[in-house]
């Protein structure tokens, strides 16, 4: 190979973890192949997603260059900006499909909850890291408050899916920092006890989604339609699937949201159980690799954030797949690296960039 090119590719790859990178690469490739079928072989849309991948890759690469301590330094400003934007949304957001999620900024509009997904665990990790010598109960209380603030604002929008993901990301930080099992158990019991209260403040459509989960056939043309059609797609895929671009459920329009939230149904219909197990295997491998990076990370911030990011990735995937195969309610959570959509991909890129950076700076002392 041309030595200059070799040097350049080394420059490109140096900050990245080859194992994680190749796993992500394979899953992304599967994602693009599936998407091509899910958008009915429409090249413009597929190309747009390729560009999204490019942007996500660039974000990952750039973030991977930054040391974890510098990333930690961003936690407070990012968190503050995120929370302020959420407040702005609550005051002056644009309502789309009955939920106030978007904020107009000049020519474009943004969804601040995406930023908060990353900023909240960072903020909690930063805070716990600051008090790592002497972590006491009240620090966990403060951590919980830091989590509850954006969580409450997102719930108000209402955006159950994102709120759940933010809650999970924050919880993972607190859990990895050593939150006592007793407290976790108490929290779980409290949550169970507050379920009826939660039910009463839920929106009708949210209640419907949960009822639909319990019996999708009750309203087959209404709320249950998504779930039923997705389950038919998955089930009819059988062991080996109907073949790429041969899915009848997806190509004949029976499957709604098939290039975004329900893309896993397209995949499982066309590639069958064999394909589905391969994808789940890849996801497990990515998460375990992330946890390995977390395990080797130095410094509490890096450890907490690496663990939280990996577990969040797991949560996204599990919630999405669970929804498609009818074990979880329909919440708007995309399947990472496979669903169509730039925002979610860029968020993924940033997250994995942080992981790469943490991996690169393993064994180094973090300056305070």
């Amino acid at each position, binding site marked *: 190979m041309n030595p200059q090119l070799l040097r350049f590719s080394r420059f490109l790859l140096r900050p990245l973890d080859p194992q994680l990178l190749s796993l992500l690469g394979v899953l992304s490739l599967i994602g693009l192949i599936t998407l091509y079928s899910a958008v009915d072989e429409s090249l413009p849309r597929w190309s747009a997603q390729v560009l999204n991948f490019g942007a996500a890759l660039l974000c990952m690469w750039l973030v991977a260059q930054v040391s974890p301590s510098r990333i930690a330094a961003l936690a407070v400003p990012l968190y503050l900006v995120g929370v302020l934007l959420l407040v702005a949304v609550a005051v002056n957001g644009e309502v789309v499909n009955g939920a106030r999620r978007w904020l107009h900024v000049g020519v474009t509009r943004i969804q601040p909850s995406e930023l908060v997904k990353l900023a909240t665990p960072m903020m909690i990790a930063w805070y716990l890291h600051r008090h790592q010598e002497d972590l006491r109960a009240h620090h966990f209380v403060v951590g919980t408050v830091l989590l509850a603030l954006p969580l409450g604002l997102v719930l108000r929008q209402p955006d159950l899916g994102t709120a759940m993901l933010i809650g999970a990301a924050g919880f993972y930080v607190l859990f990895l920092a050593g939150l006592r099992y007793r407290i976790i158990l108490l929290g779980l019991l409290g949550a169970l006890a507050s379920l009826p209260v939660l039910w009463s403040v839920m929106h009708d459509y949210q209640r419907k989604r949960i009822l639909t989960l319990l019996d999708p056939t009750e309203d087959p043309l209404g709320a249950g339609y998504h779930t039923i059609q997705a389950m*038919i797609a998955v089930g009819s895929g059988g*062991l080996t699937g109907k073949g790429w671009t041969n899915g009848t459920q997806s190509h004949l*329009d029976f499957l709604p949201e098939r290039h975004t939230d329900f893309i896993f149904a397209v995949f499982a219909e066309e590639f069958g159980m064999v394909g589905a197990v391969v994808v789940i295997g890849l996801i497990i491998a990515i*998460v375990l690799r992330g946890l390995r990076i977390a395990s080797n990370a130095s410094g*509490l911030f890096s450890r907490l954030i690496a663990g939280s990011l990996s577990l969040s990735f797991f949560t996204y995937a*599990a919630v999405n797949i669970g929804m498609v195969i*009818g074990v979880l309610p329909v919440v708007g959570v995309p399947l990472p690296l496979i669903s169509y959509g730039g925002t979610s991909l860029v968020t993924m890129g940033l997250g994995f960039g942080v992981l790469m950076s943490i991996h690169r700076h393993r064994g180094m002392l973090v300056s305070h």
Partner: protein
Amino acid sequence: MKLTTRQEITRNSQYQARLQIAAVFIVVVFLVLIGRLTVLQTVQYDYYHTLAESNRISLVPSQPNRGLITDRNGIVLAENRAVYTVEIYPKEIDDLQATLRNLGGVIDLSESDRRRFDKRLRESRNFDSIAVKSFLTDAEVARFSANKFRLKGVELTTHLFRSYPMGTTAAHILGHVGRISPQDKALLESRGQTAAYRGIESIGKDGVEKTYETDLRGVAGYAQVETDAAGRGVRTIARKASVPGNKLRLAVDIRLQKIGEEAFGGRRGAVVAIDPATGDILALVSQPSFDPNAFVDGIDPAIWRELNQSLDKPLTNRPLRGAYPPGSTIKPFMALAALETGTRSPERTIVDPGFYTLPGQGHQYRCWKTEGHGSVDLHRSVVVSCDTYYYGLAVEMGIEKTHDFLARFNFGKASGIDIEGERSGLNPNEAWKRARFKDKWYAGDTVSAGIGQGYVLATPMQLAYAAAVLANRGTAFRPHLAKEIVDLQSGKVRRIEPKPAYVTHFSDDNLDRVREAMVGVTQPGGTAAQAAAGAPYRIAGKTGTAQVIGMKQGQKYKESEVDERHRDHAWFIAFAPADDPKIALAVLVENGGHGGSVAAPIARKMMDWWILGKAPGAEPTAGEGAAH
């Protein structure tokens, strides 16, 4: 603010433990998901596979071509026409009213179109398309195509529609098809025939269209079509062609039919013309008529109301449904009865003073000729239609003998023609009156029956049939409209063979005497002489008048003084040529007055066509002279 090494180690081991717990949790969750996938994709695979296939594949039926109906010479009376129809897929439309408004800007949607659409929308149960308007004009098709992009969920399709090119001609024979109604559906379900109608939109509702429905219908084909979620076909997987219905050739000569219809000149009435040797119905006229094309796509309520409420009752099939007193047309049959039962010899003469009185009673039963016919024998009684002769004859013979003899000519019974709705008429006797009115039979009842009045009722169909039996010397061929049914696939022809319905025996002498008397009717001095004048063949006929309202004792019926609808009905029955009958017919003109002057000329025009092949045009117009 540094951690001690010991703290570091403790912290680290706790952290590593938590990571491991997390890893285990992850694997467990994914195993649960894989478990669920296994259930869906292997255990329940068949179930979901079936669901996906039934989602995907639908059977789209293709309409068969309904069998043609032709007259005996192959002239087409009912065919199928490709018609442009605008259909709406309600499932694809959010705002139906807005779509209909938009559509109304492109094609002409009348109030009645809207009403029909609303009705179909209510009756449709599934997600099918619903026809909004059929019979689009070329201009509408062009406008629709140009505006198609603005009309989501609206499609232009072609359908085969039944078409009756002759319009009102022979409408009562053909009947019509119409869209399958919920009642039709229920009936088909009860007969287990629903499957045969999948893909078929219309059904024979009346006439031969109804009788020969099974032959004409054909078998719908279908295409296995892959459909998308909106129910639209994406591609065809398999196809089975439809089988066209059989062709129905009628015995009717449509030109004869037309001549008959036109001869009415707008009057109300009926003609039945039969080939006595076969039972072929050559013409079945019912005037006024209606246009069966109006029924094909569901009749417009306004037209329906007009047809239904008209005093002229155009929808009524008069030859079958109109039961009228046969009047004097019954006399040849009574005359034959007199001879066959031996009640009166042909030579026996009576003196007609212009009326008849029952022995020991003062009531005068009047002859139509006030001054009387003088001395009358059997032959003359038919030729001049002497009422007095028959009053006495009926009384001498008695009602039971009269009834039994008339029954041999099928009076009081439906002829069994191959379309629905025939009435049986009325051949009264004592038992009937007791059952019907819980009253005894009076001698006066017999007197009236003798001249075809009183309780006696007959349809034009029955009188034509009776004339045909007389013409055929007692062998009755069941009257039928269908001549043959042609299977277009195999080319097989199923002939409706003329089969004698029954045979009744008369003495040839008696028969000839009565037939000669009927010929006398159309000769100079007879009541139909003028109508028959100049015919190069001999006609056996009998005129008749059916009273619409009863006349008081001593009151004289004057045509000019009676409201048009209360005037007498004019009858004429005939067969010709008298010695070798080719056609037998019965003509009724409602409120026409005299049979000889009004009904007989219609018969003459039809016989001229049938026997001579001569179309009406230059023949003498009927005069007013001859009565009865």
